[in-house]
């Protein structure tokens, strides 16, 4: 059984479809890259998968682990292992980063019928995960994303992914706004977190990220739909030739 099956999906908001007739199948152990120009609907797909309340699905279906994903609330999807890494992580002043991570971690434990961990035990878990993604410990007791640099915000997304150990991670432009050093650190972190039982959808505008995380599948988004799919060599071709040769027919 595939992990995720998107069939003929059209969705958008305020009555206008932004993505149209999208179909995509993702199996455990796979890394898919979704590339495309700005405004092509890549981020909308991520938000629909995560369950953003502003987006409405007008047709099609999404099956996740054999269940209807669209029937599940946002938090339900998260507890079932869907993780979205935000393009623009939200700042929440007043919420302690470590406490927030522990709440999220515990929500998952409770779901599995296990006992919650106390702050002391969680601190050990957190230390290990922070080492894994190369994040400075000083960010533990900062307010969630508040005043973080762009790079630290993205690292914090990957830290959350490490803590939550999702089955399906959708990373929305995790690479944008990062300098090459930060990008390498973030990519290494992501690589350490992928294994044969989970799957990754990387949404990116640039081919650069794919030098560090190798996808098996590359899909080109344009005008709200997938106009071309291929192997990793497609990413190189896009880098060399730009998007016009694939997107022109769709527009």
């Amino acid at each position: 059984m595939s992990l995720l099956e998107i069939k003929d999906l059209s969705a958008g908001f305020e009555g206008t479809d932004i993505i149209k007739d999208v179909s995509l199948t993702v199996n455990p152990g796979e890394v898919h890259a979704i590339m495309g120009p700005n405004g092509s609907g890549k981020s909308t797909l991520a938000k629909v998968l995560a369950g953003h309340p502003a987006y409405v699905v007008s047709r099609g279906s999404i099956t996740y682990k054999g269940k209807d994903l669209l029937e599940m609330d946002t938090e339900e999807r998260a507890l079932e292992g869907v993780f979205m890494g935000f393009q623009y992580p939200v700042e929440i002043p007043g919420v302690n980063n470590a406490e927030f991570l522990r709440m999220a971690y515990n929500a998952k434990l409770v779901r599995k019928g296990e006992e919650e961990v106390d702050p002391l035990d969680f601190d050990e878990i957190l230390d290990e995960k922070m080492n894994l993604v190369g994040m400075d410990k000083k960010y533990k007791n900062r307010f969630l994303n508040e005043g973080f640099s762009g790079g630290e915000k993205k690292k914090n997304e990957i830290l959350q992914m490490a803590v939550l150990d999702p089955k399906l991670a959708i990373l929305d432009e995790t690479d944008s706004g990062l300098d090459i050093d930060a990008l390498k650190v973030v990519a290494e972190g992501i690589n350490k977190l992928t294994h044969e039982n989970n799957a990754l959808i990387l949404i990116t505008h640039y081919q650069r990220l794919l030098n560090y995380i190798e996808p098996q599948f590359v899909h080109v988004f344009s005008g709200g739909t997938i106009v071309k799919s291929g192997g990793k060599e497609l990413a190189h071709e896009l880098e060399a030739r730009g998007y016009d040769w694939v997107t022109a027919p769709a527009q």
Partner: protein
Amino acid sequence: MEKTEAPETAVLALHRKFLEGGQVKASLRPVNEVGIQRFETLKFPHKKHEMYTFVNTHELTTTVFELAGDGPVDTAWMQDRIYPACRNSVLVFVNGAFQENLSNLSALGDTFRISCLSEAVADDEIKTLLLGSLEEENDVFAALNGAFVHHGMLIDIAAKAALEAPVQLLYVSTGASSGAVTSHPRLVVRLGELAEIKMIVTYAGTRDNYFINAVNDFIVKDGAGVTYTQVQKDDAESWHCSKTRVHLHRDARFFGRNASSGNRLTRHHYEVRLKEEGAELLLSGASVLVNQEQVHNFIRIHHEAPHCTSNQVFKNVINDKGRSSFDGTVIVNKGAQLTYSDQLINNLMLSDEAHADSKPNLMIFADDVKCAHGATVGQIDEDQLFYLKTRGLSQELAETLLTTSFVDSLIQTIPFPDVVADLDTILMKKLEA
């Protein structure tokens, strides 16, 4: 035809009784007289009064008060309100009068000196302050405080003294009278050059139906610094006015934070003068309001010299029919170049009937300054809510986290852990219901 009696009449009658009652200190009598004259000139605010645009004082001004006499205070009740870190550095006031037997100054040493205002008024600087501020007073409640001042305290911190222990001033409103009672505490804190003090002022009541009307002055000499937190946790059925005047000299600092649980009416009035170069001011305020509770902040900051800094951050969470307002003006005088000033007011509304008014204002008469102001009124941020839910937090948990964090981000900046813990109980509990 019978004419309705003006609310001022009851105050004048109370004042006559006060003057005749033998509580008056001869040395403070000129202050009382200037105070009542100023009161008569100013009168209680009417609806269109510029200073009270957002504050309805009708209920307060039409209530007839007696002066709160002595009242019993339960020792255990009081101990509960003294912060552990201040056990040996606490001054207790009952209805405005200092209670030596309930206080403990053992950690404070001889660089911390207290005296009665009735004695301190012999000092020219104090006399000028008491009378001068009243003659120019434009806030009727501060004038009223002057009219009734008879206890009052001066705290002198010697030059270069750096007090380690935070000092707590606990103002208790009490009284056996069945009717409405009022008290008018008066405090002057004077710091010598390079002195430092950490101070917590707590307002609480053992009863309901009282009006506490405090005036506090801080004279901060060159290079001195005050870290100040004001905790308003009066009975829900009370009224609270406090005016805080701050006079900052060269390189002086005042970091003032208030946290309010609200009541029938709480109004904080700040008047700050950054008089000489390098002075720095922080004012912040946090409140959580439910039912019909009210908290209002009225602020006037005068940048009178170059190179001064002022920051203001105010956050309110308002539920039910709660009401809050912020009316703040920063005045940058001609010549006060290189002023840096920032004002930020955020209100989080949790019900349709909650009400918040914000009026941030800048008056700039210098040409090389950096000033900013902003105000927001909003509901729970949908993007923040979505973010938390994508991490598996339930709608309910995410909402609670966002409302508590909204004010907690300010409360956590209070540099006294005891106070933070106290506020987590009294303010945050309101949000859990």
